[in-house]
Protein backbone atom coordinates (compact mmCIF):
# COMPACT_ATOMS: atom_id res chain seq x y z
CA UNK A 1 0.00 0.00 0.00
CA UNK A 2 2.90 2.28 -0.79
CA UNK A 3 2.16 5.97 -0.83
CA UNK A 4 -1.25 5.54 0.73
CA UNK A 5 -2.14 5.40 4.37
CA UNK A 6 -5.28 4.12 5.95
CA UNK A 7 -6.95 6.02 8.71
CA UNK A 8 -5.93 4.81 12.14
CA UNK A 9 -8.87 3.40 14.05
CA UNK A 10 -9.71 5.40 17.17
CA UNK A 11 -9.28 3.46 20.39
CA UNK A 12 -12.86 4.05 21.36
CA UNK A 13 -15.59 5.90 19.52
CA UNK A 14 -18.96 5.87 21.17
CA UNK A 15 -20.77 8.73 19.50
CA UNK A 16 -20.64 11.17 16.64
CA UNK A 17 -18.72 13.78 18.63
CA UNK A 18 -15.76 11.44 18.74
CA UNK A 19 -16.00 10.40 15.10
CA UNK A 20 -13.06 11.32 12.86
CA UNK A 21 -13.14 14.65 11.05
CA UNK A 22 -13.51 13.09 7.60
CA UNK A 23 -16.69 11.32 8.71
CA UNK A 24 -18.21 14.50 10.09
CA UNK A 25 -17.24 16.32 6.89
CA UNK A 26 -18.99 13.68 4.82
CA UNK A 27 -22.16 13.90 6.89
CA UNK A 28 -22.23 17.67 6.57
CA UNK A 29 -22.02 17.31 2.80
CA UNK A 30 -25.06 15.02 2.47
CA UNK A 31 -27.30 15.63 5.47
CA UNK A 32 -29.30 18.21 3.56
CA UNK A 33 -30.40 15.65 1.00
CA UNK A 34 -33.96 14.59 1.84
CA UNK A 35 -33.42 10.98 0.78
CA UNK A 36 -30.66 10.45 3.37
CA UNK A 37 -32.04 8.65 6.44
CA UNK A 38 -28.99 7.38 8.25
CA UNK A 39 -25.19 7.44 8.05
CA UNK A 40 -23.03 5.05 10.04
CA UNK A 41 -19.34 4.38 10.43
CA UNK A 42 -17.64 1.13 11.33
CA UNK A 43 -14.19 -0.33 10.87
CA UNK A 44 -13.00 -3.50 9.20
CA UNK A 45 -9.57 -3.67 10.76
CA UNK A 46 -8.18 -0.22 10.04
CA UNK A 47 -10.41 0.41 7.04
CA UNK A 48 -13.29 2.80 7.76
CA UNK A 49 -16.62 1.84 6.25
CA UNK A 50 -19.25 4.54 5.82
CA UNK A 51 -22.76 3.39 5.01
CA UNK A 52 -25.46 5.81 3.87
CA UNK A 53 -29.05 4.61 4.06
CA UNK A 54 -31.46 6.35 1.73
CA UNK A 55 -35.16 6.02 1.04
CA UNK A 56 -36.15 6.43 -2.59
CA UNK A 57 -38.34 4.79 -5.20
CA UNK A 58 -36.66 2.39 -7.63
CA UNK A 59 -34.86 3.02 -9.89
CA UNK A 60 -33.03 5.24 -7.44
CA UNK A 61 -30.18 6.53 -9.62
CA UNK A 62 -31.01 10.21 -9.12
CA UNK A 63 -31.11 9.72 -5.35
CA UNK A 64 -27.81 7.83 -5.21
CA UNK A 65 -25.70 9.97 -7.50
CA UNK A 66 -25.27 13.06 -5.26
CA UNK A 67 -24.09 10.77 -2.47
CA UNK A 68 -21.61 9.02 -4.73
CA UNK A 69 -20.27 12.41 -5.81
CA UNK A 70 -19.96 13.49 -2.16
CA UNK A 71 -17.98 10.31 -1.46
CA UNK A 72 -15.69 11.15 -4.35
CA UNK A 73 -15.27 14.71 -3.16
CA UNK A 74 -14.16 13.43 0.23
CA UNK A 75 -11.58 11.14 -1.36
CA UNK A 76 -10.35 13.88 -3.67
CA UNK A 77 -9.96 16.31 -0.76
CA UNK A 78 -7.55 14.02 1.07
CA UNK A 79 -5.34 11.73 -1.05
CA UNK A 80 -4.35 9.72 2.04
CA UNK A 81 -7.92 8.58 2.75
CA UNK A 82 -8.96 5.05 1.96
CA UNK A 83 -12.61 4.37 2.77
CA UNK A 84 -15.07 1.64 1.93
CA UNK A 85 -18.39 3.35 1.13
CA UNK A 86 -21.85 1.91 0.73
CA UNK A 87 -25.22 3.35 -0.20
CA UNK A 88 -28.25 1.23 0.70
CA UNK A 89 -31.84 1.98 -0.25
CA UNK A 90 -33.96 0.87 2.69
CA UNK A 91 -37.01 0.44 0.50
CA UNK A 92 -35.17 -2.57 -1.00
CA UNK A 93 -32.56 -3.51 1.59
CA UNK A 94 -33.13 -3.07 5.30
CA UNK A 95 -30.00 -4.80 6.61
CA UNK A 96 -28.22 -1.55 7.46
CA UNK A 97 -31.28 0.35 8.59
CA UNK A 98 -30.56 0.12 12.29
CA UNK A 99 -33.07 0.71 15.02
CA UNK A 100 -32.47 2.47 18.30
CA UNK A 101 -29.95 -0.13 19.47
CA UNK A 102 -26.86 -0.19 17.31
CA UNK A 103 -24.76 -3.33 16.92
CA UNK A 104 -21.33 -3.22 18.59
CA UNK A 105 -18.77 -1.25 16.65
CA UNK A 106 -21.28 0.83 14.69
CA UNK A 107 -21.03 4.60 15.12
CA UNK A 108 -24.18 6.51 14.28
CA UNK A 109 -23.19 9.68 12.44
CA UNK A 110 -26.62 10.86 11.34
CA UNK A 111 -30.24 9.79 11.48
CA UNK A 112 -33.43 11.41 10.29
Amino acid sequence: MAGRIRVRQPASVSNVAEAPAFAKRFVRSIQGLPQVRQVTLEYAGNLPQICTVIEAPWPDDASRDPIYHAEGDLLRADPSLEIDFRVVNRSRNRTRNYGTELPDGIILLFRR
Partner: protein
Amino acid sequence: MPSRAEHIAKAEANEQVAHLLQAVHPDWAVTALFYAAVHWVDAVLDGLDETRVHPRSHAQRRGYIARRPELAVIEADYTALQDASVGSRYDCEVFETADVAHMWETRYAAARQVCEAIVGRSSQGASPRGA
Protein backbone atom coordinates in the same frame (compact mmCIF):
# COMPACT_ATOMS: atom_id res chain seq x y z
CA MET B 1 0.04 -8.62 -12.94
CA PRO B 2 -2.52 -8.98 -15.76
CA SER B 3 -1.99 -6.85 -18.83
CA ARG B 4 -4.49 -4.35 -20.16
CA ALA B 5 -5.49 -6.84 -22.86
CA GLU B 6 -6.11 -9.51 -20.24
CA HIS B 7 -8.28 -7.15 -18.20
CA ILE B 8 -10.32 -6.30 -21.29
CA ALA B 9 -10.76 -9.97 -22.16
CA LYS B 10 -11.90 -10.68 -18.60
CA ALA B 11 -14.31 -7.74 -18.69
CA GLU B 12 -15.87 -9.05 -21.88
CA ALA B 13 -16.05 -12.60 -20.49
CA ASN B 14 -17.80 -11.32 -17.35
CA GLU B 15 -20.21 -9.40 -19.52
CA GLN B 16 -21.05 -12.62 -21.36
CA VAL B 17 -21.63 -14.35 -18.02
CA ALA B 18 -23.96 -11.53 -17.00
CA HIS B 19 -25.86 -12.00 -20.24
CA LEU B 20 -26.20 -15.75 -19.64
CA LEU B 21 -27.38 -15.24 -16.06
CA GLN B 22 -29.66 -12.28 -16.58
CA ALA B 23 -32.86 -14.24 -17.14
CA VAL B 24 -32.24 -17.15 -14.76
CA HIS B 25 -30.17 -15.67 -11.92
CA PRO B 26 -30.40 -11.89 -12.14
CA ASP B 27 -28.92 -11.60 -8.64
CA TRP B 28 -25.66 -13.09 -9.91
CA ALA B 29 -25.89 -11.25 -13.23
CA VAL B 30 -25.53 -8.02 -11.24
CA THR B 31 -22.32 -9.30 -9.73
CA ALA B 32 -20.93 -10.44 -13.09
CA LEU B 33 -21.71 -7.00 -14.46
CA PHE B 34 -19.92 -5.33 -11.57
CA TYR B 35 -16.83 -7.47 -12.12
CA ALA B 36 -16.90 -6.61 -15.80
CA ALA B 37 -16.74 -2.96 -14.71
CA VAL B 38 -13.89 -3.76 -12.29
CA HIS B 39 -11.83 -5.12 -15.17
CA TRP B 40 -12.64 -2.18 -17.43
CA VAL B 41 -11.34 0.14 -14.70
CA ASP B 42 -8.26 -2.00 -14.16
CA ALA B 43 -7.64 -2.02 -17.91
CA VAL B 44 -7.65 1.78 -17.81
CA LEU B 45 -5.39 1.94 -14.77
CA ASP B 46 -2.91 -0.42 -16.39
CA GLY B 47 -1.13 2.04 -18.61
CA LEU B 48 -2.72 5.36 -17.79
CA ASP B 49 0.06 7.96 -18.09
CA GLU B 50 2.48 5.11 -18.72
CA THR B 51 2.00 3.88 -15.16
CA ARG B 52 0.83 0.40 -14.27
CA VAL B 53 -1.54 0.68 -11.36
CA HIS B 54 -3.07 -2.50 -9.98
CA PRO B 55 -5.44 -1.82 -7.08
CA ARG B 56 -5.36 -4.44 -4.37
CA SER B 57 -8.74 -3.72 -2.84
CA HIS B 58 -12.09 -2.24 -3.78
CA ALA B 59 -11.42 0.73 -1.48
CA GLN B 60 -8.10 1.41 -3.19
CA ARG B 61 -9.71 1.10 -6.64
CA ARG B 62 -12.44 3.53 -5.58
CA GLY B 63 -9.75 5.98 -4.55
CA TYR B 64 -8.14 5.81 -7.97
CA ILE B 65 -11.51 6.28 -9.66
CA ALA B 66 -12.22 9.38 -7.57
CA ARG B 67 -8.80 10.94 -8.00
CA ARG B 68 -8.16 10.31 -11.68
CA PRO B 69 -10.17 12.89 -13.67
CA GLU B 70 -10.48 10.45 -16.56
CA LEU B 71 -12.26 7.97 -14.29
CA ALA B 72 -14.05 10.32 -11.90
CA VAL B 73 -16.78 10.74 -14.51
CA ILE B 74 -17.84 7.12 -13.91
CA GLU B 75 -17.67 7.14 -10.11
CA ALA B 76 -21.45 7.13 -9.66
CA ASP B 77 -22.07 4.45 -12.30
CA TYR B 78 -19.25 2.23 -11.07
CA THR B 79 -20.19 2.58 -7.40
CA ALA B 80 -23.86 1.87 -8.10
CA LEU B 81 -22.80 -1.43 -9.69
CA GLN B 82 -20.62 -2.23 -6.68
CA ASP B 83 -23.42 -1.47 -4.23
CA ALA B 84 -25.83 -3.64 -6.22
CA SER B 85 -23.37 -6.53 -6.21
CA VAL B 86 -22.72 -6.28 -2.48
CA GLY B 87 -26.42 -5.90 -1.73
CA SER B 88 -27.27 -8.95 -3.80
CA ARG B 89 -24.56 -11.19 -2.37
CA TYR B 90 -24.55 -10.22 1.30
CA ASP B 91 -27.91 -8.61 2.04
CA CYS B 92 -30.17 -10.77 -0.16
CA GLU B 93 -31.30 -7.62 -1.99
CA VAL B 94 -33.58 -8.78 -4.78
CA PHE B 95 -32.73 -7.99 -8.38
CA GLU B 96 -35.14 -8.93 -11.14
CA THR B 97 -34.21 -9.33 -14.79
CA ALA B 98 -35.61 -5.88 -15.52
CA ASP B 99 -33.42 -4.39 -12.78
CA VAL B 100 -30.33 -5.92 -14.38
CA ALA B 101 -31.40 -4.58 -17.76
CA HIS B 102 -31.75 -1.11 -16.27
CA MET B 103 -28.33 -1.25 -14.63
CA TRP B 104 -26.79 -2.62 -17.81
CA GLU B 105 -28.28 0.05 -20.06
CA THR B 106 -27.49 2.93 -17.73
CA ARG B 107 -24.68 2.31 -15.23
CA TYR B 108 -22.64 -0.36 -16.97
CA ALA B 109 -22.97 1.00 -20.50
CA ALA B 110 -21.82 4.44 -19.36
CA ALA B 111 -18.83 3.07 -17.44
CA ARG B 112 -17.79 0.78 -20.26
CA GLN B 113 -18.08 3.51 -22.86
CA VAL B 114 -15.77 5.83 -20.91
CA CYS B 115 -13.22 3.12 -20.18
CA GLU B 116 -13.25 1.85 -23.73
CA ALA B 117 -12.65 5.35 -25.05
CA ILE B 118 -9.69 5.85 -22.69
CA VAL B 119 -8.17 2.49 -23.52
CA GLY B 120 -8.60 3.12 -27.23
CA ARG B 121 -7.04 6.56 -26.97
CA SER B 122 -4.07 5.64 -24.87
CA SER B 123 -3.38 2.44 -26.81
CA GLN B 124 -2.84 4.33 -30.05
CA GLY B 125 0.77 3.92 -30.97
CA ALA B 126 1.55 1.93 -27.84
CA SER B 127 3.45 -1.28 -28.20
CA PRO B 128 1.65 -4.48 -27.20
CA ARG B 129 2.63 -5.98 -23.86
CA GLY B 130 1.69 -8.64 -21.39
CA ALA B 131 2.17 -11.48 -23.85
